[in-house]
């Protein structure tokens, strides 16, 4: 039998329930002036003030050791903070990547000095990170990366171009994936390494904006021209970049951000439909809610696996594939129920949220691994690739 285990997530403990209630209060106060349209930016909202408030209140680095500014709480307590943030449409962009994957990578692979320098800043909501993986000729085929770091005394000299780097223009650090070996045909995945690069203080690094389909500036091109990075900013071992990146992806692909991107539209849809007595609306919302509840359970199940140090790469790919289908389907489901002309700059909440979601939804099955890549990973997990 082909088993793809999704173990039952544990029932909420008293601590989890208390935290949820406390954190909902925190969000209600912090976000009281945030409009539905702003909330619909979901994790693309970037607000350093909010991230600092999260850090001060102890909601970042929740599972990390206290010696690094963490709070030694459970993975499920962290999950509560993450899902409640997204469901409320909080502007989490200034701490999102760092809290989700950069910090955990530094804890796993970093030197003592790197941990001492960076983890307390992340936990305080003061260090924003971005992900330096994609390149002009290396998108889904990450192992084709060409950016190269060459050792030069106490430094590495880095040359190459990274593309689609969300928030490179705002963030403080990037974890850069690049080639340190010869990069011959026999050495695609081997011979790669990761570096912690200071975005504000690296000579030879230039960052250029790329405006997306929605007219917004999240993407950037990062150009490294003989950029100098201190050798002690190598993350993990030289040549182990591929393994490190792969272990990051299970964290990146299984979270609630993979199915909650259009939650604000769902809430606004309910606000409109609550005034109607429509059988079709009831039935449709029932089916949507069932999909959402089951995705949430699958995602919490992967959290349980990661908590137990199990390999959850296959399960995470399933959550992201099914999750993106769900969040991308919502605009069309809404359009079957309510007539509105989408306009992200509209005064009306519903049309504004719909406009923002319609324009952004196409990216949800691209970022973090395309639908096609995910299905390839799942097929490999099934033993047919």
């Amino acid at each position, binding site marked *: *039998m*082909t088993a*793809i285990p*999704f173990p*039952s997530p544990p029932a909420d403990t008293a601590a989890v329930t208390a935290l*949820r209630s406390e954190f*909902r209060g925190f969000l209600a106060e912090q976000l009281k002036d945030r409009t539905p349209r702003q909330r619909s930016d979901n994790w693309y909202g970037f607000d350093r003030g909010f991230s600092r408030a999260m850090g001060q209140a102890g909601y970042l680095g929740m599972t990390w050791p206290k010696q690094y500014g963490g709070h030694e709480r459970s993975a499920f307590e962290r999950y509560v903070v993450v*899902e*409640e943030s997204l*469901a*409320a449409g909080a502007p989490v962009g200034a701490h999102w990547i760092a809290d989700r994957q950069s910090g955990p990578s530094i804890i796993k692979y970093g030197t003592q000095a790197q941990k001492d320098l960076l983890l307390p800043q992340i936990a305080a909501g003061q260090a924003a990170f971005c992900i330096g993986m994609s390149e002009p000729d290396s998108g889904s085929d990450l192992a084709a990366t060409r950016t190269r770091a060459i050792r030069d005394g106490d430094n590495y000299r880095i040359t190459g171009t990274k593309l689609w780097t969300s928030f490179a223009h705002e963030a403080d650090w990037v974890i850069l994936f690049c080639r340190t070996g010869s990069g011959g045909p026999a050495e695609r995945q081997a011979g790669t390494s990761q570096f912690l690069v200071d975005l504000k203080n690296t000579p030879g690094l230039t960052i250029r904006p790329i405006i997306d389909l929605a007219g917004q500036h999240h993407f950037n091109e990062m150009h490294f021209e003989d950029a100098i990075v201190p050798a002690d900013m190598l993350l993990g071992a030289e040549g182990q970049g591929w393994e490190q990146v792969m272990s990051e992806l299970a964290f990146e692909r299984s979270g609630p951000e993979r199915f909650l991107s259009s*939650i604000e539209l*769902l*809430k*606004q849809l*309910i*606000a409109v*439909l*609550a005034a109607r007595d429509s*059988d079709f*609306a*009831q*039935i*449709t*919302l*029932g*089916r949507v*809610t*069932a*999909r*959402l*509840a*089951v*995705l*949430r*359970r*699958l995602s919490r*199940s992967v959290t349980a696996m990661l908590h137990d140090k199990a390999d959850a790469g296959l*399960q995470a790919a*399933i959550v992201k*594939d*099914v999750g993106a289908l769900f969040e991308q389907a919502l605009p069309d489901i809404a359009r079957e129920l309510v007539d509105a002309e989408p306009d992200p700059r509209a005064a009306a909440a519903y049309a504004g949220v719909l406009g923002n979601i319609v324009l952004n939804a196409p990216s949800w099955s691209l970022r973090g691994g395309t639908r*096609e890549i*995910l*299905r*390839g990973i*799942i*097929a490999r*997990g*099934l*033993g*047919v*690739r």
Partner: protein
Amino acid sequence: MLADMLERLFDAHLDDAALARAAQGEWLGAAWDEIAANGLPLALLSDDRGGFGLSAAETGEVLRLLGRRAVPLPVAETMAANRLLAAAGLPLAEGAAGLAEGGTIAGGRLTGTASRVAWADKLECLALSVGGRLYRVPRAGWTIAEAEHALTGEPRETITFDWAADEGAPLAHDLLAEGAAIRAFQIAGALEAALDLTLAHTSTRVQFGKPLARFQAVQHELAKLAGELACATAAADLAGEALARGDLAGVAAGSLRAREAAGNGASIATQMHGAIGFTREYPLHRHTTALWTWRDEFGGQVHWARLLGKAALAAGADGYWPMVTSL
């Protein structure tokens, strides 16, 4: 291990010939006797009631196994009926049992009908929900009004009651919810079987000089099928937990997503098989016809979607997310 014992039991008594007879509506009496002798009708009860004392995970494993083996007998229904009867303090079934809603009680007499009861003619008793109470109706309490069938070929009879009703007992929880949760697990099990058959077929069937599973278009369909299986499994667990705490909205959520996965998964599995999947000589049909049967039983998709959708609308925009996290 319980699952291994059951696999051996089904291997011994449910061969292809027996399954084909069941698909013609024939009662597999010898198989039932063996299943009963192994204690399965009481499996969901605690040890002290003569049951297996299973954990939630083990309960799911047993119910999925019944789906995976497409067992053409009312084993799951009997387990569920006994769980309800035990919870209500009523005597347990002494043979095969069914789950039904219907009929009316007036002047101490049960009359009226219940529609499409699985194997109604072969049951020893029925766990019947009438007006919020549970009754243990013996076989003598009904006659067969109409012999109808499920897509699997198994009987689903409409029955007419005429029985001097006893007191019955308060229902522990909604009877349709009990049936819907059980079916969600069976659906997940049938999808396990469908995925296994589809993987085996596409890995061995060669066209254009290579196994079908080497084609990327096929691989991606297999990935989607795995996604539907994952959703159905999680949905069944969700429904089972919600049933245990008496949360109808949670049962609705789990049941609905399992029903959706049944249709989506059956389509992919059949398509990936090509014409052989559309025959009775190849075993996939047992699982697809079961999936198409189970997804519409114990309150259909509309019944449960309406219940959950009303709850969502009642929660409103601000209460919606708290409602979702409570499911």
